[in-house]
Protein backbone atom coordinates (compact mmCIF):
# COMPACT_ATOMS: atom_id res chain seq x y z
CA UNK A 1 0.00 0.00 0.00
CA UNK A 2 1.27 3.38 -1.00
CA UNK A 3 1.77 6.10 1.60
CA UNK A 4 -0.27 8.48 -0.57
CA UNK A 5 -3.26 6.19 -0.10
CA UNK A 6 -3.83 7.71 3.31
CA UNK A 7 -5.54 10.64 1.64
CA UNK A 8 -8.45 8.42 0.56
CA UNK A 9 -10.43 7.96 3.80
CA UNK A 10 -10.12 11.68 4.60
CA UNK A 11 -12.81 12.45 2.05
CA UNK A 12 -15.33 10.64 4.20
CA UNK A 13 -13.86 11.27 7.64
CA UNK A 14 -13.53 15.05 7.44
CA UNK A 15 -17.16 15.87 6.51
CA UNK A 16 -18.54 13.32 8.96
CA UNK A 17 -16.37 14.71 11.77
CA UNK A 18 -17.39 18.23 10.80
CA UNK A 19 -21.07 17.28 10.92
CA UNK A 20 -20.58 15.70 14.33
CA UNK A 21 -18.81 18.73 15.78
CA UNK A 22 -21.38 21.15 14.39
CA UNK A 23 -24.25 19.10 15.79
CA UNK A 24 -22.62 19.23 19.23
CA UNK A 25 -21.30 22.75 19.51
CA UNK A 26 -23.14 24.57 16.75
CA UNK A 27 -26.08 25.52 18.91
CA UNK A 28 -24.04 27.26 21.62
CA UNK A 29 -21.25 28.87 19.59
CA UNK A 30 -22.88 31.24 17.18
CA UNK A 31 -20.32 31.62 14.40
CA UNK A 32 -19.08 28.04 14.49
CA UNK A 33 -21.44 26.48 11.92
CA UNK A 34 -20.50 29.00 9.22
CA UNK A 35 -16.78 28.84 9.87
CA UNK A 36 -16.79 25.08 10.18
CA UNK A 37 -18.89 24.49 7.07
CA UNK A 38 -16.78 26.73 4.88
CA UNK A 39 -13.45 25.48 6.19
CA UNK A 40 -14.41 21.80 5.89
CA UNK A 41 -15.54 22.16 2.30
CA UNK A 42 -12.46 24.27 1.51
CA UNK A 43 -10.20 21.52 2.87
CA UNK A 44 -12.12 18.91 0.88
CA UNK A 45 -11.80 21.01 -2.23
CA UNK A 46 -8.04 21.27 -1.76
CA UNK A 47 -7.73 17.56 -1.05
CA UNK A 48 -9.67 16.65 -4.15
CA UNK A 49 -7.35 18.76 -6.30
CA UNK A 50 -4.44 17.05 -4.56
CA UNK A 51 -5.98 13.68 -5.35
CA UNK A 52 -5.86 14.48 -9.08
CA UNK A 53 -2.15 15.16 -8.73
CA UNK A 54 -1.55 12.00 -6.69
CA UNK A 55 -3.43 9.91 -9.20
CA UNK A 56 -1.23 11.29 -11.94
CA UNK A 57 1.91 10.36 -10.06
CA UNK A 58 1.01 6.98 -8.59
CA UNK A 59 -1.79 5.64 -10.79
CA UNK A 60 -4.64 3.77 -9.11
CA UNK A 61 -4.50 4.00 -5.32
CA UNK A 62 -6.36 1.77 -2.89
CA UNK A 63 -6.96 1.90 0.84
CA UNK A 64 -7.98 -1.02 3.03
CA UNK A 65 -10.27 -0.01 5.86
CA UNK A 66 -9.00 -1.31 9.20
CA UNK A 67 -6.02 -2.93 7.42
CA UNK A 68 -8.25 -5.83 6.29
CA UNK A 69 -7.23 -6.47 2.74
CA UNK A 70 -9.88 -6.54 0.02
CA UNK A 71 -11.70 -8.72 -1.05
CA UNK A 72 -12.20 -9.73 2.60
CA UNK A 73 -12.17 -6.22 4.00
CA UNK A 74 -13.67 -3.02 2.67
CA UNK A 75 -11.58 -1.36 0.00
CA UNK A 76 -11.56 2.24 -1.16
CA UNK A 77 -10.31 3.07 -4.63
CA UNK A 78 -8.97 6.28 -6.11
CA UNK A 79 -8.80 6.19 -9.89
CA UNK A 80 -9.29 8.73 -12.64
CA UNK A 81 -13.08 8.75 -12.57
CA UNK A 82 -13.08 8.99 -8.77
CA UNK A 83 -10.80 11.99 -8.62
CA UNK A 84 -12.76 13.66 -11.40
CA UNK A 85 -16.03 13.24 -9.51
CA UNK A 86 -14.44 14.30 -6.22
CA UNK A 87 -13.28 17.55 -7.77
CA UNK A 88 -16.76 18.17 -9.20
CA UNK A 89 -18.57 17.51 -5.93
CA UNK A 90 -16.24 19.34 -3.60
CA UNK A 91 -15.72 22.37 -5.80
CA UNK A 92 -19.45 22.95 -6.10
CA UNK A 93 -20.00 22.17 -2.41
CA UNK A 94 -17.44 24.81 -1.44
CA UNK A 95 -19.06 27.51 -3.56
CA UNK A 96 -22.46 26.61 -2.14
CA UNK A 97 -21.35 26.77 1.50
CA UNK A 98 -19.90 30.20 0.91
CA UNK A 99 -23.23 31.23 -0.56
CA UNK A 100 -25.27 29.80 2.31
CA UNK A 101 -23.39 31.87 4.91
CA UNK A 102 -25.63 34.78 3.95
CA UNK A 103 -28.58 33.01 2.41
CA UNK A 104 -29.40 30.76 5.35
CA UNK A 105 -29.63 33.73 7.77
CA UNK A 106 -33.39 33.76 7.32
CA UNK A 107 -33.73 30.24 8.70
CA UNK A 108 -33.44 29.77 12.44
CA UNK A 109 -31.52 26.53 12.81
CA UNK A 110 -28.43 27.15 10.75
CA UNK A 111 -26.40 24.53 12.58
CA UNK A 112 -28.89 21.83 11.60
CA UNK A 113 -28.53 22.92 8.01
CA UNK A 114 -24.76 22.62 8.09
CA UNK A 115 -24.89 19.27 9.88
CA UNK A 116 -27.15 17.80 7.22
CA UNK A 117 -25.19 19.49 4.46
CA UNK A 118 -21.89 17.98 5.56
CA UNK A 119 -23.53 14.58 6.02
CA UNK A 120 -24.74 14.80 2.45
CA UNK A 121 -21.28 15.78 1.18
CA UNK A 122 -19.74 12.95 3.20
CA UNK A 123 -22.23 10.47 1.77
CA UNK A 124 -21.57 11.59 -1.78
CA UNK A 125 -17.79 11.44 -1.34
CA UNK A 126 -18.24 7.97 0.13
CA UNK A 127 -20.31 6.77 -2.81
CA UNK A 128 -17.65 8.02 -5.16
CA UNK A 129 -14.65 6.65 -3.37
CA UNK A 130 -15.77 3.25 -2.15
CA UNK A 131 -14.83 0.03 -3.87
CA UNK A 132 -17.26 -2.18 -1.99
CA UNK A 133 -20.83 -2.88 -3.01
CA UNK A 134 -22.52 -2.75 0.37
CA UNK A 135 -20.45 0.15 1.59
CA UNK A 136 -21.64 1.90 -1.53
CA UNK A 137 -25.25 1.31 -0.50
CA UNK A 138 -24.62 2.64 3.01
CA UNK A 139 -23.09 5.88 1.72
CA UNK A 140 -25.86 6.21 -0.84
CA UNK A 141 -28.40 6.07 1.96
CA UNK A 142 -26.49 8.58 4.10
CA UNK A 143 -26.55 11.06 1.25
CA UNK A 144 -30.18 10.30 0.38
CA UNK A 145 -31.57 10.56 3.91
CA UNK A 146 -29.73 13.83 4.46
CA UNK A 147 -31.15 15.16 1.21
CA UNK A 148 -34.74 14.18 2.14
CA UNK A 149 -34.37 16.11 5.36
CA UNK A 150 -32.83 19.08 3.58
CA UNK A 151 -35.68 19.29 1.06
CA UNK A 152 -38.10 19.53 3.99
CA UNK A 153 -35.89 22.12 5.70
CA UNK A 154 -38.32 25.02 5.42
CA UNK A 155 -41.17 22.87 6.88
CA UNK A 156 -43.81 24.75 4.92
CA UNK A 157 -46.65 23.06 3.06
CA UNK A 158 -44.89 22.62 -0.26
CA UNK A 159 -41.58 21.62 1.20
CA UNK A 160 -43.16 18.86 3.26
CA UNK A 161 -45.23 17.52 0.41
CA UNK A 162 -42.26 17.47 -1.95
CA UNK A 163 -40.00 15.92 0.68
CA UNK A 164 -42.50 13.16 1.39
CA UNK A 165 -42.83 12.30 -2.27
CA UNK A 166 -39.07 12.41 -2.74
CA UNK A 167 -38.44 10.30 0.34
CA UNK A 168 -40.90 7.59 -0.68
CA UNK A 169 -39.60 7.37 -4.24
CA UNK A 170 -36.00 7.57 -3.14
CA UNK A 171 -36.48 4.81 -0.59
CA UNK A 172 -38.06 2.52 -3.16
CA UNK A 173 -35.15 3.21 -5.50
CA UNK A 174 -32.67 2.37 -2.76
CA UNK A 175 -34.52 -0.85 -1.97
CA UNK A 176 -34.27 -1.94 -5.58
CA UNK A 177 -30.55 -1.25 -5.43
CA UNK A 178 -30.26 -3.29 -2.23
CA UNK A 179 -32.20 -6.15 -3.81
CA UNK A 180 -29.85 -6.03 -6.78
CA UNK A 181 -26.85 -6.15 -4.45
CA UNK A 182 -28.39 -9.15 -2.67
CA UNK A 183 -28.78 -11.00 -5.98
CA UNK A 184 -25.24 -10.14 -7.02
CA UNK A 185 -23.86 -11.28 -3.68
CA UNK A 186 -25.78 -14.54 -3.96
CA UNK A 187 -24.38 -15.05 -7.46
CA UNK A 188 -20.75 -14.09 -6.93
CA UNK A 189 -20.33 -14.53 -3.13
CA UNK A 190 -18.21 -11.40 -2.90
CA UNK A 191 -18.95 -7.76 -2.25
CA UNK A 192 -15.79 -6.12 -3.50
CA UNK A 193 -16.48 -4.46 -6.83
CA UNK A 194 -13.22 -5.49 -8.46
CA UNK A 195 -13.52 -9.07 -7.25
CA UNK A 196 -17.14 -9.14 -8.34
CA UNK A 197 -16.06 -8.03 -11.81
CA UNK A 198 -13.58 -10.90 -11.99
CA UNK A 199 -16.15 -13.50 -10.90
CA UNK A 200 -18.77 -12.15 -13.28
CA UNK A 201 -16.41 -12.25 -16.23
CA UNK A 202 -15.58 -15.88 -15.42
CA UNK A 203 -19.16 -17.01 -14.93
CA UNK A 204 -20.55 -15.09 -17.88
CA UNK A 205 -23.85 -13.30 -18.23
CA UNK A 206 -27.09 -15.16 -17.68
CA UNK A 207 -30.72 -14.33 -16.91
CA UNK A 208 -30.02 -13.34 -13.32
CA UNK A 209 -27.56 -10.65 -14.35
CA UNK A 210 -30.11 -9.22 -16.76
CA UNK A 211 -32.63 -9.02 -13.93
CA UNK A 212 -30.04 -7.35 -11.69
CA UNK A 213 -29.25 -4.88 -14.47
CA UNK A 214 -32.90 -3.92 -14.71
CA UNK A 215 -33.10 -3.42 -10.95
CA UNK A 216 -30.03 -1.20 -10.97
CA UNK A 217 -31.37 0.71 -13.93
CA UNK A 218 -34.59 1.39 -12.00
CA UNK A 219 -32.84 2.24 -8.76
CA UNK A 220 -30.19 4.52 -10.18
CA UNK A 221 -32.63 5.85 -12.76
CA UNK A 222 -34.77 7.03 -9.85
CA UNK A 223 -31.77 8.65 -8.21
CA UNK A 224 -30.67 10.31 -11.44
CA UNK A 225 -34.25 11.29 -12.41
CA UNK A 226 -34.23 9.74 -15.87
CA UNK A 227 -37.54 10.28 -17.55
CA UNK A 228 -39.90 7.50 -16.55
CA UNK A 229 -38.65 7.93 -12.97
CA UNK A 230 -38.39 11.70 -12.81
CA UNK A 231 -41.63 12.61 -11.02
CA UNK A 232 -39.98 13.60 -7.73
CA UNK A 233 -37.41 16.00 -9.14
CA UNK A 234 -39.54 18.94 -10.31
CA UNK A 235 -41.20 19.07 -6.88
CA UNK A 236 -38.22 18.41 -4.67
CA UNK A 237 -35.64 20.67 -6.29
CA UNK A 238 -37.68 23.89 -6.34
CA UNK A 239 -39.06 23.38 -2.84
CA UNK A 240 -35.68 23.10 -1.13
CA UNK A 241 -33.76 26.20 -0.03
CA UNK A 242 -31.68 27.58 -2.94
CA UNK A 243 -28.27 26.23 -1.83
CA UNK A 244 -29.80 22.78 -1.49
CA UNK A 245 -31.51 22.97 -4.87
CA UNK A 246 -28.12 23.84 -6.29
CA UNK A 247 -26.53 20.94 -4.47
CA UNK A 248 -29.23 18.45 -5.50
CA UNK A 249 -29.35 19.47 -9.14
CA UNK A 250 -25.66 20.21 -9.33
CA UNK A 251 -24.07 17.15 -7.84
CA UNK A 252 -26.39 14.79 -5.97
CA UNK A 253 -28.24 13.37 -8.96
CA UNK A 254 -24.90 12.98 -10.71
CA UNK A 255 -22.91 11.28 -8.01
CA UNK A 256 -25.72 8.97 -6.84
CA UNK A 257 -27.21 8.41 -10.27
CA UNK A 258 -24.87 8.83 -13.18
CA UNK A 259 -21.58 7.99 -11.49
CA UNK A 260 -23.15 4.87 -9.97
CA UNK A 261 -24.59 3.82 -13.33
CA UNK A 262 -21.19 4.24 -15.02
CA UNK A 263 -19.30 2.43 -12.32
CA UNK A 264 -21.60 -0.54 -12.09
CA UNK A 265 -22.56 -0.99 -15.72
CA UNK A 266 -19.19 -0.25 -17.26
CA UNK A 267 -16.73 -1.45 -14.63
CA UNK A 268 -18.46 -4.22 -12.68
CA UNK A 269 -21.06 -5.91 -14.87
CA UNK A 270 -19.57 -4.87 -18.17
CA UNK A 271 -21.49 -3.00 -20.81
CA UNK A 272 -23.39 -4.84 -23.53
CA UNK A 273 -25.25 -3.47 -26.58
CA UNK A 274 -28.69 -3.88 -25.00
CA UNK A 275 -27.86 -1.83 -21.92
CA UNK A 276 -26.16 0.85 -23.95
CA UNK A 277 -29.13 1.15 -26.31
CA UNK A 278 -31.45 1.41 -23.28
CA UNK A 279 -29.21 4.17 -21.92
CA UNK A 280 -29.26 5.98 -25.26
CA UNK A 281 -33.02 5.76 -25.46
CA UNK A 282 -33.63 6.89 -21.88
CA UNK A 283 -31.12 9.69 -22.28
CA UNK A 284 -32.78 11.04 -25.38
CA UNK A 285 -36.23 10.66 -23.86
CA UNK A 286 -35.17 12.62 -20.76
CA UNK A 287 -33.56 15.25 -22.93
CA UNK A 288 -36.68 15.82 -25.02
CA UNK A 289 -39.36 15.46 -22.34
CA UNK A 290 -37.44 17.59 -19.83
CA UNK A 291 -36.90 20.29 -22.41
CA UNK A 292 -40.52 20.36 -23.52
CA UNK A 293 -41.83 20.49 -19.96
CA UNK A 294 -39.35 23.16 -18.91
CA UNK A 295 -40.30 25.69 -21.53
CA UNK A 296 -43.87 26.08 -20.25
CA UNK A 297 -42.96 26.76 -16.63
CA UNK A 298 -43.40 30.14 -14.96
CA UNK A 299 -41.79 29.26 -11.67
CA UNK A 300 -38.09 30.13 -11.99
CA UNK A 301 -36.78 27.19 -9.97
CA UNK A 302 -39.24 24.73 -11.48
CA UNK A 303 -38.02 25.67 -14.93
CA UNK A 304 -34.45 25.04 -13.82
CA UNK A 305 -35.44 21.69 -12.34
CA UNK A 306 -37.02 20.48 -15.58
CA UNK A 307 -34.01 21.72 -17.46
CA UNK A 308 -31.84 19.57 -15.17
CA UNK A 309 -33.74 16.50 -16.37
CA UNK A 310 -33.05 17.56 -19.92
CA UNK A 311 -29.34 18.09 -19.32
CA UNK A 312 -29.03 14.77 -17.48
CA UNK A 313 -30.33 13.28 -20.72
CA UNK A 314 -27.37 14.79 -22.59
CA UNK A 315 -24.91 13.26 -20.16
CA UNK A 316 -26.51 9.82 -20.35
CA UNK A 317 -26.62 10.08 -24.15
CA UNK A 318 -22.90 10.87 -24.29
CA UNK A 319 -21.93 8.11 -21.90
CA UNK A 320 -24.32 5.60 -23.47
CA UNK A 321 -22.66 6.04 -26.87
CA UNK A 322 -19.64 4.25 -25.48
CA UNK A 323 -17.16 5.80 -27.90
CA UNK A 324 -14.12 7.62 -26.47
CA UNK A 325 -15.35 10.98 -27.69
CA UNK A 326 -18.89 10.36 -26.44
CA UNK A 327 -17.74 9.44 -22.94
CA UNK A 328 -15.36 12.39 -22.83
CA UNK A 329 -18.20 14.69 -23.89
CA UNK A 330 -20.60 13.16 -21.40
CA UNK A 331 -18.21 13.56 -18.50
CA UNK A 332 -17.27 17.06 -19.53
CA UNK A 333 -20.94 17.95 -19.73
CA UNK A 334 -21.43 16.46 -16.26
CA UNK A 335 -18.73 18.76 -14.91
CA UNK A 336 -20.04 21.80 -16.76
CA UNK A 337 -23.63 21.13 -15.83
CA UNK A 338 -22.76 20.92 -12.16
CA UNK A 339 -21.18 24.36 -12.42
CA UNK A 340 -23.75 26.26 -14.45
CA UNK A 341 -26.82 24.61 -12.99
CA UNK A 342 -25.69 25.35 -9.45
CA UNK A 343 -24.92 28.91 -10.57
CA UNK A 344 -28.42 29.27 -11.99
CA UNK A 345 -30.07 27.86 -8.88
CA UNK A 346 -28.01 30.21 -6.72
CA UNK A 347 -29.14 32.99 -9.02
CA UNK A 348 -32.78 32.07 -8.55
CA UNK A 349 -32.10 32.02 -4.82
CA UNK A 350 -30.62 35.51 -5.03
CA UNK A 351 -33.67 36.74 -6.91
CA UNK A 352 -35.96 35.15 -4.34
CA UNK A 353 -33.86 36.64 -1.54
CA UNK A 354 -34.22 40.13 -2.95
CA UNK A 355 -37.78 40.09 -4.32
CA UNK A 356 -39.47 37.29 -2.37
CA UNK A 357 -41.00 35.68 -5.43
CA UNK A 358 -40.15 32.87 -7.82
CA UNK A 359 -42.78 33.72 -10.41
CA UNK A 360 -41.14 34.94 -13.60
CA UNK A 361 -44.19 37.07 -14.50
CA UNK A 362 -43.78 39.19 -11.37
CA UNK A 363 -40.14 39.99 -12.08
CA UNK A 364 -38.63 42.18 -14.73
CA UNK A 365 -35.74 44.54 -15.11
CA UNK A 366 -33.85 43.06 -12.19
CA UNK A 367 -30.55 43.58 -14.00
CA UNK A 368 -30.83 47.33 -13.26
CA UNK A 369 -31.10 46.82 -9.54
CA UNK A 370 -28.94 43.72 -9.21
CA UNK A 371 -26.16 44.06 -11.78
CA UNK A 372 -24.07 41.16 -10.55
CA UNK A 373 -26.99 38.74 -10.39
CA UNK A 374 -28.02 39.84 -13.85
CA UNK A 375 -24.55 39.34 -15.28
CA UNK A 376 -23.96 35.94 -13.70
CA UNK A 377 -27.45 34.86 -14.69
CA UNK A 378 -26.69 35.86 -18.26
CA UNK A 379 -23.41 33.92 -18.26
CA UNK A 380 -25.06 30.83 -16.75
CA UNK A 381 -27.98 30.93 -19.17
CA UNK A 382 -25.82 31.35 -22.23
CA UNK A 383 -23.51 28.64 -21.01
CA UNK A 384 -26.29 26.08 -20.53
CA UNK A 385 -27.78 27.04 -23.88
CA UNK A 386 -24.46 26.32 -25.55
CA UNK A 387 -23.24 29.66 -26.81
CA UNK A 388 -19.52 29.66 -27.70
CA UNK A 389 -17.00 30.22 -26.11
CA UNK A 390 -18.64 29.28 -22.79
CA UNK A 391 -18.06 25.80 -21.45
CA UNK A 392 -21.51 24.35 -22.21
CA UNK A 393 -20.92 24.81 -25.92
CA UNK A 394 -17.85 22.59 -26.04
CA UNK A 395 -19.38 19.68 -24.19
CA UNK A 396 -22.58 19.71 -26.23
CA UNK A 397 -20.55 19.95 -29.40
CA UNK A 398 -18.49 16.93 -28.37
CA UNK A 399 -21.62 14.88 -27.62
CA UNK A 400 -23.23 15.77 -30.95
CA UNK A 401 -20.04 15.06 -32.91
CA UNK A 402 -19.69 11.74 -31.09
CA UNK A 403 -23.28 10.80 -31.93
CA UNK A 404 -22.67 11.60 -35.59
CA UNK A 405 -19.42 9.63 -35.61
CA UNK A 406 -21.21 6.63 -34.10
CA UNK A 407 -23.75 6.96 -36.94
CA UNK A 408 -26.61 7.65 -34.54
CA UNK A 409 -27.99 10.43 -36.68
CA UNK A 410 -31.44 10.46 -35.09
CA UNK A 411 -30.04 10.91 -31.60
CA UNK A 412 -27.69 13.61 -32.86
CA UNK A 413 -30.53 15.54 -34.46
CA UNK A 414 -32.57 15.34 -31.23
CA UNK A 415 -29.57 16.68 -29.34
CA UNK A 416 -29.32 19.65 -31.70
CA UNK A 417 -33.06 20.27 -31.47
CA UNK A 418 -33.10 20.21 -27.66
CA UNK A 419 -30.15 22.57 -27.64
CA UNK A 420 -32.29 25.11 -29.50
CA UNK A 421 -35.13 24.45 -27.05
CA UNK A 422 -32.74 25.16 -24.18
CA UNK A 423 -31.73 28.44 -25.74
CA UNK A 424 -35.42 29.35 -26.05
CA UNK A 425 -36.20 28.62 -22.42
CA UNK A 426 -33.25 30.57 -21.10
CA UNK A 427 -34.03 33.46 -23.36
CA UNK A 428 -37.42 33.44 -21.69
CA UNK A 429 -35.77 33.57 -18.25
CA UNK A 430 -33.54 36.45 -19.27
CA UNK A 431 -36.38 38.37 -20.84
CA UNK A 432 -38.84 38.07 -17.99
CA UNK A 433 -36.50 38.19 -15.02
CA UNK A 434 -33.55 40.39 -15.80
CA UNK A 435 -34.20 42.48 -18.88
CA UNK A 436 -36.98 44.89 -19.78
CA UNK A 437 -38.42 47.59 -17.58
CA UNK A 438 -38.51 47.33 -13.83
CA UNK A 439 -41.92 46.11 -12.72
CA UNK A 440 -43.86 47.89 -9.99
CA UNK A 441 -43.19 47.12 -6.37
CA UNK A 442 -39.62 46.10 -7.09
CA UNK A 443 -38.15 49.59 -7.05
CA UNK A 444 -36.77 49.25 -3.54
CA UNK A 445 -34.93 45.93 -3.83
CA UNK A 446 -31.24 45.76 -3.00
CA UNK A 447 -28.33 43.80 -4.34
CA UNK A 448 -27.51 40.64 -2.39
CA UNK A 449 -24.87 40.39 0.40
CA UNK A 450 -21.18 39.94 -0.22
CA UNK A 451 -20.72 36.18 0.28
CA UNK A 452 -23.53 35.35 -2.12
CA UNK A 453 -21.96 37.66 -4.69
CA UNK A 454 -18.56 36.10 -4.19
CA UNK A 455 -19.73 32.54 -4.73
CA UNK A 456 -21.82 33.40 -7.77
CA UNK A 457 -18.98 35.37 -9.33
CA UNK A 458 -16.62 32.41 -8.81
CA UNK A 459 -19.00 30.01 -10.50
CA UNK A 460 -19.61 32.41 -13.38
CA UNK A 461 -15.87 32.83 -13.83
CA UNK A 462 -15.52 29.05 -13.99
CA UNK A 463 -18.25 28.91 -16.64
CA UNK A 464 -16.17 31.18 -18.81
CA UNK A 465 -12.79 29.55 -18.40
CA UNK A 466 -13.56 25.84 -18.02
CA UNK A 467 -13.38 25.33 -21.76
CA UNK A 468 -9.62 25.12 -21.21
CA UNK A 469 -10.07 21.63 -19.76
CA UNK A 470 -10.29 20.41 -23.34
CA UNK A 471 -6.88 21.76 -24.38
CA UNK A 472 -4.78 18.63 -24.98
CA UNK A 473 -2.12 19.27 -22.32
CA UNK A 474 -4.69 19.87 -19.60
CA UNK A 475 -7.31 17.31 -20.55
CA UNK A 476 -4.68 14.56 -20.54
CA UNK A 477 -4.42 14.52 -16.79
CA UNK A 478 -7.99 15.29 -15.81
CA UNK A 479 -10.78 14.51 -18.25
CA UNK A 480 -8.97 11.86 -20.26
CA UNK A 481 -8.08 9.94 -17.13
CA UNK A 482 -11.72 9.81 -16.11
CA UNK A 483 -12.96 8.70 -19.49
CA UNK A 484 -10.23 6.05 -19.71
CA UNK A 485 -11.64 4.38 -16.59
CA UNK A 486 -15.04 4.03 -18.23
CA UNK A 487 -13.52 2.99 -21.53
CA UNK A 488 -11.40 0.22 -20.10
CA UNK A 489 -14.59 -1.42 -18.80
CA UNK A 490 -14.06 -4.59 -16.85
CA UNK A 491 -10.30 -4.09 -16.95
CA UNK A 492 -11.04 -1.98 -13.88
CA UNK A 493 -10.93 -5.16 -11.78
CA UNK A 494 -7.42 -6.03 -12.91
CA UNK A 495 -6.04 -2.55 -12.28
CA UNK A 496 -7.58 -2.36 -8.80
CA UNK A 497 -6.39 -5.82 -7.81
CA UNK A 498 -2.91 -4.91 -9.02
CA UNK A 499 -2.94 -1.80 -6.85
CA UNK A 500 -3.99 -3.77 -3.78
CA UNK A 501 -0.97 -6.02 -4.05
Amino acid sequence: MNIASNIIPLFVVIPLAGAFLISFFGRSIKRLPDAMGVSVTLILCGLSLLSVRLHNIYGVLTYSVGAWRPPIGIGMVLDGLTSFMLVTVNLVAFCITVYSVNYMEKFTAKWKFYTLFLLMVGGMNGVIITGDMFNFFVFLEIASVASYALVAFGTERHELEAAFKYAIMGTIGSLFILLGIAFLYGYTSTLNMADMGVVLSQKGIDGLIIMVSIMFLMGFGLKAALVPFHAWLPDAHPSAPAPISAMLSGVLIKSLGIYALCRIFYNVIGINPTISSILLFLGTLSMVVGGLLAIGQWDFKRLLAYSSISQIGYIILGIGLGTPLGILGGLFHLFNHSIFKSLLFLNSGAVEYATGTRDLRKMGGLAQKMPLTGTTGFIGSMSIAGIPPLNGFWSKLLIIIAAVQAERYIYASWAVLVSILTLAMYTKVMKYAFLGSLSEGLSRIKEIPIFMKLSMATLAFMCIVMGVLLIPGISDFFLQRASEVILEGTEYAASVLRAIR
Partner: protein
Amino acid sequence: MMVYLLCIILFCCGLYCVLRKRNIIKIIIGVIILEYAVNLFFILTGYRMEGRAPIFSSEAEILNMVDPLPQALVLTAIVIGLATTALLVAIAIRIYEKYGTFDITEIRELKG
Protein backbone atom coordinates in the same frame (compact mmCIF):
# COMPACT_ATOMS: atom_id res chain seq x y z
CA MET B 1 -37.88 -22.49 -3.21
CA MET B 2 -41.13 -21.88 -1.38
CA VAL B 3 -39.57 -19.37 1.01
CA TYR B 4 -38.22 -17.28 -1.86
CA LEU B 5 -41.67 -17.21 -3.42
CA LEU B 6 -43.24 -16.10 -0.16
CA CYS B 7 -40.56 -13.44 0.11
CA ILE B 8 -41.44 -12.11 -3.33
CA ILE B 9 -45.14 -12.14 -2.45
CA LEU B 10 -44.32 -10.04 0.62
CA PHE B 11 -42.39 -7.64 -1.62
CA CYS B 12 -45.38 -7.35 -3.96
CA CYS B 13 -47.70 -6.70 -1.00
CA GLY B 14 -45.47 -3.81 0.05
CA LEU B 15 -45.31 -2.43 -3.46
CA TYR B 16 -49.10 -2.65 -3.79
CA CYS B 17 -49.51 -0.87 -0.47
CA VAL B 18 -47.21 1.99 -1.53
CA LEU B 19 -48.78 2.40 -4.93
CA ARG B 20 -52.47 2.01 -4.13
CA LYS B 21 -53.10 3.35 -0.64
CA ARG B 22 -54.14 6.93 -0.11
CA ASN B 23 -53.31 7.34 3.54
CA ILE B 24 -49.80 8.59 4.26
CA ILE B 25 -49.38 6.31 7.25
CA LYS B 26 -50.38 3.29 5.17
CA ILE B 27 -47.84 4.28 2.53
CA ILE B 28 -45.16 4.41 5.21
CA ILE B 29 -46.22 0.96 6.41
CA GLY B 30 -45.92 -0.22 2.81
CA VAL B 31 -42.35 1.07 2.65
CA ILE B 32 -41.57 -0.79 5.88
CA ILE B 33 -43.02 -4.02 4.46
CA LEU B 34 -40.87 -3.55 1.35
CA GLU B 35 -37.79 -3.08 3.49
CA TYR B 36 -38.55 -6.23 5.46
CA ALA B 37 -39.08 -8.26 2.31
CA VAL B 38 -35.68 -7.18 0.94
CA ASN B 39 -33.97 -7.83 4.27
CA LEU B 40 -35.58 -11.26 4.52
CA PHE B 41 -34.42 -12.08 1.03
CA PHE B 42 -30.88 -11.04 1.85
CA ILE B 43 -30.85 -13.27 4.93
CA LEU B 44 -32.22 -16.17 2.90
CA THR B 45 -29.37 -15.96 0.37
CA GLY B 46 -26.93 -16.93 3.13
CA TYR B 47 -29.09 -19.51 4.89
CA ARG B 48 -28.52 -23.27 4.79
CA MET B 49 -31.10 -25.81 5.84
CA GLU B 50 -30.12 -27.19 9.24
CA GLY B 51 -26.90 -25.26 9.03
CA ARG B 52 -24.87 -24.34 12.08
CA ALA B 53 -23.36 -21.13 13.33
CA PRO B 54 -19.99 -20.40 11.72
CA ILE B 55 -18.02 -20.47 14.96
CA PHE B 56 -14.72 -22.24 14.79
CA SER B 57 -14.17 -24.88 17.44
CA SER B 58 -11.63 -27.69 17.67
CA GLU B 59 -13.91 -30.71 18.16
CA ALA B 60 -16.57 -30.14 15.52
CA GLU B 61 -15.84 -30.09 11.82
CA ILE B 62 -17.42 -27.20 10.02
CA LEU B 63 -19.49 -28.65 7.24
CA ASN B 64 -22.86 -27.07 6.82
CA MET B 65 -22.49 -23.51 7.93
CA VAL B 66 -24.67 -20.47 7.56
CA ASP B 67 -23.10 -17.52 5.78
CA PRO B 68 -22.78 -14.79 8.45
CA LEU B 69 -22.06 -11.91 6.10
CA PRO B 70 -25.64 -11.26 4.93
CA GLN B 71 -26.75 -11.16 8.56
CA ALA B 72 -24.21 -8.47 9.34
CA LEU B 73 -25.23 -6.54 6.25
CA VAL B 74 -28.93 -6.79 7.07
CA LEU B 75 -28.28 -5.41 10.54
CA THR B 76 -26.86 -2.33 8.86
CA ALA B 77 -29.75 -2.22 6.43
CA ILE B 78 -32.23 -2.36 9.32
CA VAL B 79 -30.56 0.62 11.00
CA ILE B 80 -30.72 2.57 7.75
CA GLY B 81 -34.38 1.58 7.42
CA LEU B 82 -34.98 2.90 10.92
CA ALA B 83 -33.51 6.28 10.01
CA THR B 84 -35.60 6.50 6.86
CA THR B 85 -38.78 5.49 8.66
CA ALA B 86 -38.20 7.96 11.48
CA LEU B 87 -37.72 10.74 8.95
CA LEU B 88 -40.83 9.72 7.00
CA VAL B 89 -42.95 9.64 10.15
CA ALA B 90 -41.61 13.04 11.23
CA ILE B 91 -42.53 14.49 7.85
CA ALA B 92 -45.97 12.85 8.07
CA ILE B 93 -46.62 14.52 11.45
CA ARG B 94 -45.62 17.91 10.03
CA ILE B 95 -47.86 17.34 7.02
CA TYR B 96 -50.77 16.59 9.34
CA GLU B 97 -50.10 19.82 11.23
CA LYS B 98 -50.13 21.86 8.02
CA TYR B 99 -52.86 20.19 5.99
CA GLY B 100 -55.02 18.62 8.71
CA THR B 101 -55.31 15.36 6.80
CA PHE B 102 -53.39 12.21 5.93
CA ASP B 103 -55.17 11.71 2.60
CA ILE B 104 -52.76 12.20 -0.30
CA THR B 105 -55.54 13.09 -2.72
CA GLU B 106 -56.10 16.24 -0.67
CA ILE B 107 -52.37 17.02 -0.36
CA ARG B 108 -51.76 17.89 -3.98
CA GLU B 109 -50.60 21.43 -4.36
CA LEU B 110 -47.56 20.48 -6.44
CA LYS B 111 -48.11 19.12 -9.90
CA GLY B 112 -45.22 16.66 -10.20
